[in-house]
């Protein structure tokens, strides 16, 4: 469980987050959505401890991230995996070395065991057999999956994904969403996804938080999105006339 408590963040006079509160449950796929500039990335960075809030607390169960020492934060991060928007794969390492990196750094396992674990994670993301390829030799979708494999290699309790679908075609994006959702259920982890992809919202959003101008404008599940009367959510989700027509048809047929 991750709980954000009254999070404020300002950069000089620019108040990016203005008192955010929410709770993300274990074993669920939690989405942070919002327009560009709404504060999603800043909020995600605060949640993982890459940035400190100006005010407020971030709770990982009963541990307050904002009050932890650097050592305690590093300890907590052993339980955290993250998929970055740009994948952040190390270019000079092969796929196997990328995924093995956390194992090399933090475990004393034998090489054979580490390679077995890497292969298992690659199978999890349906990429068996590409161990020796470099990130530049595989497609964007495959890079995302390798990023997911690296994020889960240490069996984290918390998985963060920053725009996992950006730059992917709709079909690959859906596959990535399904993969993240499956991993969340299979390993019973708390997953937080920062996205503005509507497919993700409607397919895997068990808990959705909509940010608007630094405030929490709406929260709920994907089932509630269709019937929402929240103007901000309507404007955001059904921004295009096409989606508006689809929604009208869906509600009409209901």
């Amino acid at each position: 469980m991750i709980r954000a408590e009254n999070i404020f963040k300002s950069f000089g006079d620019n108040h990016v987050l203005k008192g955010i509160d929410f709770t993300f449950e274990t074993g669920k796929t939690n989405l942070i959505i919002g327009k560009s500039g709404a504060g999603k990335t800043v909020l995600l960075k605060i949640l993982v401890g890459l940035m400190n809030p100006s005010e407020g607390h971030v709770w990982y169960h009963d541990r307050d991230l904002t009050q932890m020492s650097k050592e305690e934060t590093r300890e907590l991060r052993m339980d955290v995996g993250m998929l970055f928007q740009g994948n952040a794969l190390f270019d000079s390492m092969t796929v196997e070395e990328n995924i093995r990196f956390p194992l090399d750094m933090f475990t004393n396992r034998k090489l054979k065991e580490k390679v077995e674990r890497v292969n298992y994670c690659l199978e999890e993301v349906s990429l068996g057999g590409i161990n020796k390829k470099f990130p530049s030799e595989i497609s964007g979708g495959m890079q995302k999956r390798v990023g997911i494999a690296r994020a889960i290699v240490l069996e984290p309790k918390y998985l963060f994904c920053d725009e996992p679908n950006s730059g992917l075609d709709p079909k690959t994006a859906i596959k990535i969403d399904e993969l993240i959702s499956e991993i969340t259920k299979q390993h019973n982890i708390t997953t937080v996804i920062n996205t503005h992809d509507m497919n993700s919202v409607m397919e895997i959003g068990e808990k959705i938080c909509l940010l608007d101008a630094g405030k929490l404008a709406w929260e709920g599940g994907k089932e509630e999105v269709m019937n929402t009367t929240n103007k901000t959510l309507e404007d955001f989700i059904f921004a295009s006339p096409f989606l508006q027509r689809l929604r009208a048809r869906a509600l009409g047929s209901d």
Partner: protein
Amino acid sequence: MNPGFLYHFGKFVQWFPQIFSKPENGRMYYKEVVRQMYDIGVGSLMIVFVISIFIGAVTAIQFAYQLGNSFIPPYYIGYIVRDMAIIELAPTFTCLVLAGKVGSNMAAEIGGMRQKEHIDAMEIMGVNTSSYLVMPKLIAALIMIPVLVSISALISNFGGYLASVATGYYSHSEYVQGLRSFFVPWNVVMMYVKAISFAFILTSVSCYQGYFVKGGSIELGEASTRAVVYSDILILIADYIIALVLTV
């Protein structure tokens, strides 16, 4: 004094202790040290070889010109080239050039990792990136740069030999007699003090510039440039201070 300098100096002093925290995994740090030693040492051999030949050759020619038809014995040429190389030219010239080659490389490598979110990715994994990215470079530089400076001093003497003996200005025995005259071991100590100090300066300044880079490719280019310029200026200041302290 420029307040920017004080800001960066304070930030540097605050950041620096983080570099020396306990490694998460000694073997990974060791591998990185070896990789950096290879990059800095073997990767810089050719440029060190070329500049050293010319350091010695130009010193020999210049002093031959200065000595002219004076009463100073000709064998002094070897003595002058040797001491100039050991005391000043090998450590200072080599490190100024290495600031350009190795320093800018370090700043660009770390800065690139910052921009591609590699550093954030490592931080999320729980890696102390200040330590993992900087400590191996610092250790490798502190080992390899004195070795490169030693090689430079040796090759400079050879360059002086080529310029003075191979061209027929002086005889082999005159040059070698000069090389073997008035040797003061303290000068070698001074060379290593300079080499180690300069290695520390160019590595730490360059890594700092790369680690805290913000923005895009233009800012990364500027950080690389700053790494070289600031390293060079600090090396020259340190050169003066070391000369003052160790020779007075």
